[in-house]
């Protein structure tokens, strides 16, 4: 009997006593990871990439999603494609570059050539194959079972019977709209991927990404830094709310004193920056009205899309996804998202802002990595010290951004999928 069969839940919940606990076994057990692979990563919509990463016909990127090797490409008719990056002949990875532009894809092993849509075009020794060989769908590179996009965020799903992406995203769509509506000309990924890893369970990064409670202690040096910058902060208190968006998705929405290149000015940006930020704000008002413009410009959002996508609309906009390699190891990929048409000034300060806080060389993320790795080390004691406490803010009408409602939303859906899904 494996661990998942022994357990029928990882949660200990009693609303009346404000108890919400998670078993630490969920972070260390290989059987739990196996269940997550089949019941979460094989069933849920997973983020693949942004349309702007493959702007022209022939553009492609390769990446690992849900444990598979995926080729994300734009074909000759400009249609986006998500293909399993494996030759239908004998299985070799067909495309071996991280990104680029191609007229076709050729498997080097036996020389089979595929079109940008994955269709077999030619293979050496064609005369030795059956006459209708090329017409068979099994001769082509295989498309991922499901591939859909919303506002240029593209997702794949390995379950052909899954609900549509729009249904799956549900209330998340409104938040993706707010992010996509920041720019009249649309948003684009800005060159350069941050690829890193953590010696920690992937669910710790889910929690951390929507955890407002840790900011002031874990990131003390970041707030010290902000105070040291020229003129420091915007006169804005750190306050806001957390929301459960259903399906395990969640968001923090709050105000904070750092600069937002979309339109919250800080003194460091000077008078020229003030003019630029005013111009951006007036553009938002003209396009969306005063109320929505304020929401877009002045509120931060840490948006979590179950199971492993985080879009942070904070001092810059990040898109981050991660996947477990082992119970105690994950790989992380992160990108910067920015308005396509922003000025050089705005782009420069956006990226400068990004690195102040974010990423494995920033003034904050390394401390998150350390915290998560220290949790994983602490879980070595889980035979005796068995439970994590996730009860902060239970019983409140409106939980604050630094309560733990959003983690409970994640864990409830995680638990449902891992333990209650029919096989």
């Amino acid at each position, binding site marked *: 009997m494996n661990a998942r069969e022994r357990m029928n839940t990882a949660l200990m919940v009693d609303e009346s006593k404000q108890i919400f606990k998670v078993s630490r076994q969920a972070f260390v057990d290989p059987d739990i990871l196996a269940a997550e692979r089949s019941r979460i990563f094989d069933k849920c919509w997973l983020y693949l990439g942004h349309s702007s990463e493959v702007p022209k016909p022939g553009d492609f990127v390769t990446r690992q999603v849900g444990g598979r090797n995926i080729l994300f490409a734009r074909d000759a008719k400009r249609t986006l494609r998500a293909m399993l990056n494996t030759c239908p002949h004998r299985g070799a990875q067909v495309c071996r570059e991280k990104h680029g532009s191609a007229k076709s894809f050729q498997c080097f092993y036996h020389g089979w050539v595929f079109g940008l849509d994955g269709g077999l075009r030619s293979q050496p020794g064609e005369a030795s194959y059956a006459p209708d060989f090329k017409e068979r769908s099994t001769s082509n590179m295989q498309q991922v079972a499901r591939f859909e996009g919303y506002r240029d965020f593209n997702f794949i799903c390995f379950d052909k019977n899954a609900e549509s992406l729009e249904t799956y995203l549900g209330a998340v769509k409104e938040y993706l709209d707010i992010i996509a509506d920041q720019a009249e000309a649309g948003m684009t990924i800005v*060159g*350069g*991927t941050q690829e890193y890893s953590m010696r920690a369970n992937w669910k710790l990064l889910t929690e951390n990404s929507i955890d407002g409670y840790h900011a002031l202690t*874990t990131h003390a040096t970041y707030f010290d830094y902000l105070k040291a910058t020229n003129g420091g902060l915007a006169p804005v208190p750190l306050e806001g709310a957390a929301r459960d968006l259903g399906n395990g998705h969640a968001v923090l929405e709050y105000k904070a004193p750092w600069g937002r290149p979309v339109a919250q000015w800080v003194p460091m940006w000077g008078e020229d920056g003030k003019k630029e930020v005013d111009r951006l704000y007036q553009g938002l008002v003209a396009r969306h009205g005063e109320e929505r413009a304020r929401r877009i410009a002045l509120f931060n959002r840490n948006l979590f899309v179950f199971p492993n996508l985080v879009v942070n609309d904070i001092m810059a906009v990040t898109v981050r996804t991660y996947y477990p390699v082992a119970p105690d190891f994950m790989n992380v990929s992160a990108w910067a998202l920015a308005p396509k048409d922003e000025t050089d000034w705005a782009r420069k300060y956006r*990226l400068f802002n990004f*690195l102040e806080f974010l990423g494995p060389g920033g*003034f904050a993320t390394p401390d998150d990595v350390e915290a998560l*790795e220290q949790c994983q080390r602490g879980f070595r004691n889980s035979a005796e010290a068995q439970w994590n406490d996730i009860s902060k803010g239970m019983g409140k009408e409106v939980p604050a951004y630094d309560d733990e409602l959003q983690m409970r939303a994640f864990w409830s859906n995680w638990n449902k999928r891992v333990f209650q899904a029919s096989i």
Partner: protein
Amino acid sequence: MQNISRADIEDFLFAEAELLDEWRLPEWLELFTEDAIYYVPSTDVAPDSSPDKNLFYVADDRFRLSERVKRLMKRTAHAEFPHSRTRHLVSNVRIRGRSDSELEVGSAFITYRTKDGMTDTYFGSNRYRIVVEDGRLRIKEKRCLLDSEGLRTQGRVSIIL
């Protein structure tokens, strides 16, 4: 700059490595000019990319570099408290270019970082622009090009490379 030899540059870079390994970061910072920059680009962009247009791992001007040093010397820089042990190895030093005011220097590096029973290896090349100020060598630019695929498995660049 015409009379500066490779041996002079090597002595300077070896001394830089020693300051980093001994966590004498405020002294290390004094090796840099007031307008210096310190860059660690992402590994999927061109080596001479600009951080104004591309996402990097680190892109510090002198102010942010001094703040990085201040941060790393605090107990609340959790990623580096207690400090990890490091060893910066510098080799393959070459003077790649020389003008009246500036030297362009290339070197290879391997840096080991040990903490909590784990050892991470960082490797790649450094490109320096070096000037003379008040009779002493000073770094105007240090661009650190990682050869690894991103930061897998190191996970972070919480030390200075």
